[in-house]
């Protein structure tokens, strides 16, 4: 697609405070991406993300914009932030996600989130043990927010373990991102997990055994991933590839939650309305993978995680 040169340096950030179906806010994220990437920077000027219409940002929208801002680097400046939004951005580390260190990280920093519904947007290095430290910190903070007796944090432990393991083993990403926000009146915990590395399609395309199962559309790779096919070429890997398929199984069939995965130019959504698999227009793609989870904080009676992971 020919690149349209837009000499304007301001991108209006649409207001999005609801996510009608899980992942719907990515309609706005994609538009921001498209406009930002089509904008030519003139004479070293910055691209302004204009937040004048925003009074609240949905957690998934907020996290995705933060990752994009980090990816675009110093060229992005946020303008017209209302004071409440500015305060919110500061406490969730919107401008620069909180860097998780494999060993250090002041526990006291996390104390101020104990009575909040949200946590900082965290960035970790998938190649070292900061990925594990990020999970430990997030889980402990969630446990403190929702109560130690609520088993959600144990389920979260399984889900984060599998989905972040995928980032470490398959994405070749320099960074992984993790963000959680609880929505008390919905009894839901929103979880955002993301990398900016290879898409799932690229992982399968690099494996001779699966390349014939792919077509030109990136949705074909998501279908393979959802069926439990692995994306790493190792002899013992018939036992791999459970992460995405089992996570979805637990969330949908076990908990009655919602699941969304975007990778490259395709996404999959599974909620109460059923399954949807979509190939995006060619001009829209996320370099890497985003997983969104809506986890009920009230666990259905009789739920046993081990019934879903065999």
């Amino acid at each position: 697609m020919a690149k349209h040169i837009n000499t304007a340096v301001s991108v209006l950030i649409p207001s999005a405070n609801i996510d009608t179906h899980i992942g719907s806010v990515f309609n706005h994220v994609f538009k921001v991406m498209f406009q930002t990437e089509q904008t030519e920077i003139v004479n070293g000027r910055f691209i302004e993300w204009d937040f004048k219409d925003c009074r609240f940002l949905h957690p998934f929208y907020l996290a995705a914009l933060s990752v994009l801002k980090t990816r675009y680097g110093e060229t992005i400046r946020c303008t017209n932030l209302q004071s409440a939004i500015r305060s919110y951005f500061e406490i969730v580390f919107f401008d620069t996600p909180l860097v998780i260190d494999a060993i250090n990280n002041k526990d006291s920093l996390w104390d101020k989130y104990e009575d909040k519904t949200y946590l900082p947007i965290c960035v970790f290095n998938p190649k070292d043990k900061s990925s594990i430290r990020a999970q430990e910190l997030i889980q402990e903070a969630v446990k403190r927010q929702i109560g130690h007796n609520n088993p959600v944090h144990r389920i979260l432990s399984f889900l984060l373990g599998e989905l972040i393991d995928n980032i470490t083993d398959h994405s070749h990403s320099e960074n992984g991102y993790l963000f959680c926000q609880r929505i008390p009146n919905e009894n839901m915990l929103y979880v955002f997990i993301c990398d900016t590395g290879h898409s799932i399609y690229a992982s399968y395309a690099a494996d001779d055994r699966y390349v014939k199962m792919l077509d030109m559309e990136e949705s074909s790779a998501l279908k393979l991933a959802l069926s439990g096919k692995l994306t790493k070429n190792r002899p013992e890997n018939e036992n791999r590839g459970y992460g995405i398929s089992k996570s979805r199984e637990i969330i949908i069939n076990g908990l009655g939650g919602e699941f969304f995965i975007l990778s490259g130019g395709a996404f999959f959504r599974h909620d109460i309305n059923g399954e949807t698999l979509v190939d995006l227009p060619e001009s829209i793609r996320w370099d890497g993978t985003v997983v969104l989870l809506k986890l009920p904080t009230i666990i259905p009676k009789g739920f046993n995680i081990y019934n879903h992971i065999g």
Partner: protein
Amino acid sequence: MNTIYIATNIGKDIRTRSFFRRDIENLLNHNESVTLDFSEVIFISRSVADELYNVLEDYPLVQLDNLERDVKMMYSVVERARKQPRHYDDNNIEIIKLHTLKEMDEFFSSF
């Protein structure tokens, strides 16, 4: 027989397959009888449990001891699954192809 305390040497909360494999390889010797003692390990992910199964296949002289409740459950689930043929879910989902930003906008407005 030597004993390796996993909580001390690797961690109490073990989540990443590749890190676990790397750490355990540094601790094991192919010709040595070793007990991997999991006391105080509170969690292993499914992928780590699967890798632990691989370790026991690769190192026949290694055995496990003191698996805590959740760790034991996770390992049992994986062990049972490994002894059965792998099942892949069928996905006959209809694929929606969006060609333009307008189509994308309409899709998100409706679904």
